[in-house]
């Protein structure tokens, strides 16, 4: 093999997430054991100290999320990983990170719920929780890989987006993607673009920790760098201090929402949609079955294509709106009772008929099932 040829490596989605985090420059991880995400904590427990980073298994999920926010404020690139019940527990401190604008990555390897559910079985039931799990209006970025390779690349992207927007970013795997093994080609370090949080250029006495620049994002000092600033989950003004004013809340929560809404470019994969009359919209592992179904449909002469939201939040509204303008029908298969479908229906505005295909029996949705639905709506 020539020196420039790459060797494929066999690994699981969870392991790829570990590799992606290390390539992104993670130096802090706090977690708590939970199936089916534990391999991420195990991998980083082993690897982080070898890179000079820190791993800690906290006493619970809430504490893990808190420690991640604390570490990020001290300058670390910090991540946690969890699954369903743990994701529920982390929500309050995810809201804190959104409010106080603390970059961090939260991996949720979705499992069957609600509650303890079926811990080792796949589901995609946390789509809406990823968006609205914490209370109050807030920005949210959530990415949903469909392959092991993408688990790696989107973990890097999650760190970059967290640093760019100063906000928590959720990496929404599903159990299939997390545990599936595939051969992947990890990128070389020099091929990766790493985004770092903006640092203040003002001297400490002039630093306003929450004064946003035109991109909506304020530069961020680290604790210990001499800026001596205040961080709170209370509504605060540009100085970072609360004044108990509704008008401050109006300004702040709109800014937080708009910094993502106005500057985030939704990520989608479109496959054979040019001439499509029918489209499938699917995410995560279900998109793999959907792609196969589209190929089978094409073999039968059906003009069918696939749109796969990679950033599930912010939802790729324009892509779906445009799609609805050119196809007759949209099939939305998902391993829940219809969460992505709600967004597709909203964006389609009645221009295309939206058909749901849902399974919640802890089994994958097969290409044949999706093909059957395509034939049914043809």
């Amino acid at each position: 093999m020539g020196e420039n040829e790459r060797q494929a490596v066999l690994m699981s989605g969870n392991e790829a997430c570990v590799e992606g985090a290390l390539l992104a420059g993670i130096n802090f991880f706090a977690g708590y054991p939970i199936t089916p995400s534990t391999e991420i904590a195990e991998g980083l427990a082993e690897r982080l100290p070898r890179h000079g980073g820190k791993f800690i298994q906290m006493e619970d999920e809430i504490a893990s999320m808190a420690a991640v926010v604390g570490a990020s404020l001290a300058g670390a690139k910090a991540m946690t990983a969890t699954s369903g019940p743990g994701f529920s527990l982390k929500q309050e401190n995810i809201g804190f990170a959104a409010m106080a604008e603390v970059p961090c990555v939260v991996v949720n390897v979705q499992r069957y719920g609600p509650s303890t559910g079926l811990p080792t079985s796949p589901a995609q039931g946390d789509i809406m929780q990823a968006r609205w799990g914490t209370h109050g209006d807030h920005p949210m970025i959530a990415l949903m890989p469909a392959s092991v390779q993408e688990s790696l690349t989107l973990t890097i992207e999650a760190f970059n987006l967290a640093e760019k927007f100063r906000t928590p970013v959720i990496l929404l795997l599903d159990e299939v993607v997390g545990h599936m093994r595939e051969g992947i080609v990890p990128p070389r370090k020099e091929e990766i673009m790493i985004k770092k949080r903006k640092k203040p250029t003002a001297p400490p006495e002039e630093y306003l920790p929450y004064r946003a620049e035109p991109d909506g994002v304020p530069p961020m000092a680290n604790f210990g760098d001499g800026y001596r600033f205040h961080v709170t989950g209370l509504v605060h003004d540009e100085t970072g201090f609360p004044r108990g004013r509704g008008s401050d809340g109006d300004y702040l929560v709109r800014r937080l929402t708009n910094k993502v809404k106005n500057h985030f470019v939704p990520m989608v994969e479109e496959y054979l949609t040019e001439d499509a009359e029918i489209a499938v919209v699917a995410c995560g592992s279900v998109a793999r079955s959907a792609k196969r179904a589209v190929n089978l449909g094409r073999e039968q002469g059906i003009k069918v294509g696939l749109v796969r939201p990679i950033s599930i939040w912010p939802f790729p509204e324009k892509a779906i709106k445009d799609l609805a303008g050119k196809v007759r029908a949209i099939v939305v298969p998902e391993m829940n009772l219809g969460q992505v479908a709600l967004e597709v229906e909203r964006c389609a505005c009645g221009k295309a008929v939206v058909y749901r295909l849902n399974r919640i029996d802890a089994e994958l949705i097969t290409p044949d099932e999706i093909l059957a639905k395509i034939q049914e709506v043809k």
Partner: protein
Amino acid sequence: MAVKELLDRYTRMEKLPHIWCPGCGHGIILGSVLRAIQRQNLEPDKTTIVSGIGCSSRAPGYMKFDTLHTTHGRALAFATGVKLARPELNVIVLSGDGDCAAIGGNHLIHAARRNINLTTVVFNNSIYGMTSGQYSPLTPHKRFATTAPYGNVDHPFDLCQLVIAAGATYVARGTAYHTQMLIDLIAKGIERKGFSFIEVVTQCPTYYGRKNKLGSAIDMLNWQKEHGVPVKAAAKLPPEKMEGKFVIGELHCTQRPEYVEEYQRIIDRMERE
């Protein structure tokens, strides 16, 4: 150091006056924390103050350091992240009896178990003040609160004994009345490497005092003076003389490997391999 110098150096003067009620003991504790910081000569740029939610947890807002006002009960978990990510920082946690002993109880136990180098000061006023007077895990049995209108059914626990059992290496109890002792206790807590814990018995005349007819703030401070018995004196008293009283001073001081240093040893070992 004169008071003015202390205030200029360590407080955000523009944030004063503070939000605490007249007669509240929290200002005395804040002053003691600042004097202890000054005595230990901590570098302000390298000192981070972390708090949770409640009356006590508003203290960091007045302190000219990096300050982190977190979610209810979670100050120690946030502080653990700060300290582990940046060990050169002095990290001091300010919490209350509700914040630390109820919703944050689990984090307290585990911070003590890890013996992570944090100094925790708990402002124990026996009540949830911020929400107007509900009983906390440290409200005495039969005392009244808005959620204990017929007297508290619960019994409080001894937070100091709890953290000693959990593995803290420095544990002390002071009061808002015994200010010189309090400064000494907090200063030593900062000086000691490992998990240091200082419980401070303080007065909430507005809710706890009024609900239980304990008189003015002065009366409540006098109660602290009369009921807080220094460790040495307490050791000489028969149990019946200690009834209704509590021990103040240094309760526990020992040495045990500190968490962040132990983790750093692993990193160093990995680098050598």
